[in-house]
């Protein structure tokens, strides 16, 4: 009652730019807005209490490869330098697009001229029989926030039995991070192989062997049918779909993410799985923009609408949104799925279309060229004389990968470049005039 009163009393504070989310897309928008407008009031709201931090680095934090200090996404003086009013550790609770206001969990209300929704993703937690709610101190965790990593760091010791559900990129990275804390880890993946979206069977097997040699038990074609708890309500074991039981003190659910569209529910901002945006990153409501993991992106690989929850895409969309919010003309034509990471020291780079059965390839006139040597594996996917995707695994094949990405992004006819450029990516294999022009340093993409 008293809270209600104080809320109605509060006069909205006016800001020119309001950004909800303090991560890649939000930071990009700040940097972009300030390139064009150095003085307009700019406020950033995040329910996470921290200075900017790099989300992908939470597994590296567990591994001890970075620290909370070093995983800051921007320098200490970021907010001062860019004149940002911060509302950190505060949730944006209610958006009113008619009044142009956002009510915050601390009772204050902000009125905006331009709003950016950079709310990112939420973890997907499927219903599992008997499973306590995640992050409630009962041994069940998600793996998407710094707080998740810090909680795991506190709980997991050398004797802890961990089960990670989800053998996708984040599940495998979580496993790699947790290996630093305990050697008792079982990974459970529904698909017949780990990293099913990014990798084909051959490449997936190489990564699997790496993980197994680090003592991880991998269960593919499996799912958790029931979570069993002890008298204290904590997780004690999980039962798999094939009937086996695995003892477990800590259950990490890392199956995937969904766009976080909570704030726009019940508003006239159009949503289809994610927030819908146009090429200028504007939503269906004028002056309301959205960028990053929370939106539906345009995947240039097959001209489809898809959630592309990767950091470079979040940055690019945030940058476009920021420029348009500051009155510039700018468009974002879309992106391609690209990713670089490593698994226990084995580098992996993927881009574009990588997963096709030989039948699909034959049907669509797609050529697939595979090379492998020990733990190095390379798969090139070519259609109509253009590179449309690749998997590069291992140090031997990942060198100068950006030249391949460039061939893919610009859809360069491969016959116009010197033979062998896909095997040995070098600028020397390009036409000399083009090379000289490009070496002037003018951006080509």
């Amino acid at each position, binding site marked *: 009652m008293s809270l209600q009163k104080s809320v109605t009393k509060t006069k909205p504070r006016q800001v020119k730019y309001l950004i909800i989310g303090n991560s890649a897309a939000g930071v*990009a928008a700040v*940097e972009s807005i*300030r*390139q064009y407008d150095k003085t307009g009031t700019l406020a950033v709201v995040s329910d996470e209490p921290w200075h*900017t931090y*790099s989300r*992908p*680095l939470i597994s*590296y934090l567990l591994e001890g*490869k*970075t620290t909370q200090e*070093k*995983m*800051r*996404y*921007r*320098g200490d*003086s970021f907010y001062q*330098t*860019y004149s940002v009013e911060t509302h950190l550790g505060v949730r944006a609770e209610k958006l009113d697009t008619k009044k142009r206001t956002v009510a915050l969990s601390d009772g204050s209300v902000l009125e905006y001229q331009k709003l950016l929704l950079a709310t990112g993703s939420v973890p997907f937690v499927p219903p599992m029989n008997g499973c306590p709610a995640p992050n409630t101190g009962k041994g069940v965790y998600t793996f998407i926030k710094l707080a998740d990593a810090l909680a795991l760091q506190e709980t997991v010791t050398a004797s802890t039995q961990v089960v990670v559900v989800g053998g996708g990129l984040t599940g495998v990275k979580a496993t790699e991070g947790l290996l630093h804390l305990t050697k008792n880890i079982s990974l459970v993946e529904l698909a017949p192989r780990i990293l099913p979206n990014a990798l084909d069977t051959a490449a997936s097997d190489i990564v699997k062997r790496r993980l197994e040699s680090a003592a991880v038990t991998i269960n593919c074609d499996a799912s958790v049918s029931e979570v069993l708890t002890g008298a204290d309500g904590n997780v004690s074991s999980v039962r798999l779909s094939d009937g086996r039981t695995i003892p477990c003190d800590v259950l990490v659910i890392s199956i995937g993410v969904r766009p976080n569209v909570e704030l726009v529910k019940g508003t006239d901002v159009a949503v289809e799985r994610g927030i819908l945006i146009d090429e200028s990153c504007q939503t269906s409501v004028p002056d309301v923009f959205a960028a990053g993991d929370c939106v539906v992106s345009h995947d240039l690989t097959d001209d489809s609408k898809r959630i592309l929850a990767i*950091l*470079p895409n979040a*940055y*690019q969309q945030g*940058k476009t949104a920021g420029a348009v919010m500051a009155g510039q003309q700018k468009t974002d034509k879309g992106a391609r799925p*690209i*990713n*670089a*990471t*490593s698994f226990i*020291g084995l*580098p992996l*780079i993927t*881009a574009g279309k990588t997963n096709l059965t030989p039948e699909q390839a034959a049907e669509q006139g797609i050529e697939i060229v595979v090379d492998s040597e020990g733990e190095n594996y390379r798969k090139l996917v070519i259609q109509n004389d253009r590179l449309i995707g690749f998997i590069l695994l291992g*140090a031997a094949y*990942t*060198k*100068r*990968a*950006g*030249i391949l*990405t*460039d061939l893919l*992004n610009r859809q360069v006819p491969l016959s116009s470049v010197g033979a062998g450029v896909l095997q040995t*990516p*070098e*600028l*020397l294999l390009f036409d*000399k005039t083009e*090379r000289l022009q*490009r*070496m*002037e*340093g*003018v*951006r*080509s*993409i």
Partner: protein
Amino acid sequence: MKKVYPNEDWCLGCKLCEVYCAAAHSPYRDVHAAFDTPDGSKPQAGIVVEGDTKHSIAISCRHCPDAPCVEACISGAMQKTSDGVVWCDTTRCVGCMTCVLICPYGAVHKGEGMKTVTKCDLCSCTGEPECVRHCPAFALEYKECEAAQASGRGYASERAFIGDKDSQSGTEQVMEESA
């Protein structure tokens, strides 16, 4: 801004630029010590020669406006100074290679046994870059070029200089700990 421009017609393919660059960015900062390490590890250069002695070119970072590597970097380690120099803070880099994946020039490298990436940082502006100073064929020039306008954002990122031991950040290569 000034950058390193290679002249492929004069390049001998001798790779001395690589040697001096790698040494300057190694913890040893000395050619002999950098290549004659106790554990046999070799430092990585930011400038890398493509081709053979018949036809070669030394490629290094173009310090792109709106640098794709800076924008894609997942950790924030890759950054651009207000004067346009793109550099990697190796104390924050986790070696994920997203910058390697995105650089259209193939100008970012992860050396064998390295935890972090290496690229040209114009020797942190300490006068003339090492590669240019040591090229015997005068095939590298450090000069202004109108076609490439510096496009710093007007905000400086914290900048570390090689040899600046007090700095929290750095450009020095970080090796994997041998297990």
